[in-house]
């Protein structure tokens, strides 16, 4: 083989931070959108749940707040979408990247850890924007009329994302990839039904409901319902609950995450 002399002459150096971040965000987003199960989890199931639960009458919702069915369900589905993207999807993808040595290998490139985590964060944020746009569009088509301050929604989604991402990364960084896959799906499924997302916790016995109300899924869904359904201001208790989850889970992930 003849190679041009000087092709490999050393000239090392990292790219600019914004190029690193853009490249990492774009690959993370592309890989998610290309992955069949991720698409199912993040978009298809939330949209189908919205359509089926709103239009079919087998779910008889007795809500204490007196919200209509669509006003109750769409904020819950938005919370579900955040959980899908920031918890289950992130945990599974990161778990398998760890298992296949991707995280280890990227650790030997000029991409710093903040670049990897920043890319993942931005990719989750863009995915959430897509989810919110699609689910809101379907909701509006089904008669949903959102109220409230978009800034409050933004704060809730950011806090919810931080809480779920911390839990997802903690799981991905400590369990085997198969265990993460199973656990992340199981938790998603349990919280869908018992985490205040599609069934109101008020239909459960008082003591149980009070405890379950502190789950991140319940705090996020309840907060979104309060803002979007009732047009209320920022639900402080829900935000504080989500922030507490975020601090504990991100702290534990930073402490216990194993890169290989």
């Amino acid at each position, binding site marked *: 083989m003849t*190679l041009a002399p000087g092709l490999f002459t050393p000239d090392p150096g990292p790219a600019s931070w914004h190029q690193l971040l853009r490249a990492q965000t774009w690959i993370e987003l592309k*890989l998610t959108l290309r992955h069949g199960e991720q698409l199912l989890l993040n978009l298809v199931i939330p949209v189908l749940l919205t359509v089926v639960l709103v239009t079919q009458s087998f779910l008889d919702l007795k809500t204490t707040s007196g919200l209509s069915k669509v006003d109750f369900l769409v904020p819950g589905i938005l919370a579900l979408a955040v959980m899908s993207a920031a918890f289950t999807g992130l945990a599974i993808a990161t778990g398998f990247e760890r298992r296949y040595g991707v995280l280890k290998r990227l650790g030997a490139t*000029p991409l710093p850890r903040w670049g990897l985590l920043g890319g993942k964060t931005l990719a989750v944020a863009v995915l959430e924007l897509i989810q919110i746009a699609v689910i809101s569009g379907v909701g509006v088509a089904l008669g949903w009329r959102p109220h409230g301050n978009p800034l409050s929604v933004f704060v809730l989604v950011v806090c919810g994302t931080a809480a779920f991402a911390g839990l997802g990364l903690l799981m991905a960084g400590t369990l085997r990839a198969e265990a993460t896959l199973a656990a992340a799906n199981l938790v998603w499924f349990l919280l869908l039904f018992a985490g205040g997302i599609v069934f109101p916790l008020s239909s459960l016995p008082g003591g149980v409901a009070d405890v379950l109300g502190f789950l991140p899924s319940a705090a996020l869904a309840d907060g979104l319902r309060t803002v979007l359904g009732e047009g209320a201001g920022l639900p402080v208790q829900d935000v504080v609950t989500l922030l507490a989850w975020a601090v504990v889970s991100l702290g534990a992930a930073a402490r216990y995450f194993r890169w290989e």
Partner: protein
Amino acid sequence: MTTNATARRAGPSGQRLHSVDVTPSTHARTLAATEWGGEPLRSAAVEVTGLVKRYGPTLAVDELSFTVPRGSVFAVLGPNGAGKTSTIETCEGFRRADGGSVRVLGRDPVRDATELRPRVGVMLQAGGGAYPGARVGEMLRLTASYCRNPIDPALLLDLLGLSDSARKPVKRLSGGQQQRLSLAMAVVGRPELVFLDEPTAGLDPQARHAVWGIVEALRSDGVTVVLSTHHMDEAERLADEVLIVDAGKKVAHGTPAALTRGEQPTLRFRADATLDADALLALTATLPAGCVAASTGDGGYQVTGPPSAIGPHLLAAVTAWCAEKSVMPSDLQVGRRTLEDVFLDLTGRELR
């Protein structure tokens, strides 16, 4: 030890980035103290001193020391479990030394990781570490986009015979294709030093030659290469210096020429008929004084004797005897022992 390396690098090889390249390593070490602009300019590419690495009760690396001069190709040879990967991964900053010290480009591979990462290219064993769902071209372009002045990814894919697979997902590549992608990822950022952990394991002959071509081009462009391998011919062909390790310890270190020198020269051949002890005695009787024919135990035969006797007359005597007995000799060669012989002598012939 480095005369071979120096001679090879003296050829036309384009611009030299590091003037220290042609300095023998012992000299480089004495100059290591000379700092310039905060950079230990004259430091060796890799300097390992008394490295100890433990996994629980297992001692994987036991007081290993070696120095890799800048601009050279350095091969680490050893049987499975000899501590090659532990040593290399400690130099890459993936593992912390349990004892001793490791300096890479004059820096600490763990503490100074941020500074070293762009300057050091890494190929993991078995070519791992690409996103399984990413396409080949996409993965290499991603790695290139982390770097300030990368080599054109399309050119690298072409050099490594991966152009036709550029749109294939990484998870559908063969093992050999993954290895080549991993090599491309290691060099795309124009690093000063690359670590290649078994770069040709499981490759077909064409792919091996492509990888060798890249390693030779890296050296002539002034890049330091540290590679581990099981293939003796690879080390013999590529490396300026070879370090043979076994059970975490250094068992030999030097140029391939130095390691295979010093043995008495030998004539080796195979035969299409079995030569028993009597036949070998008869053969010995016809040979120049001091030469002895013997079986090597693996179906081959060898004649050893004083260096002055190993020459054309000996060759003529052996072939004449074979002609008389109607024995066809094959693989007939005169020379020193190979690196493989050195390796097996040092690390033992039994499987472990």
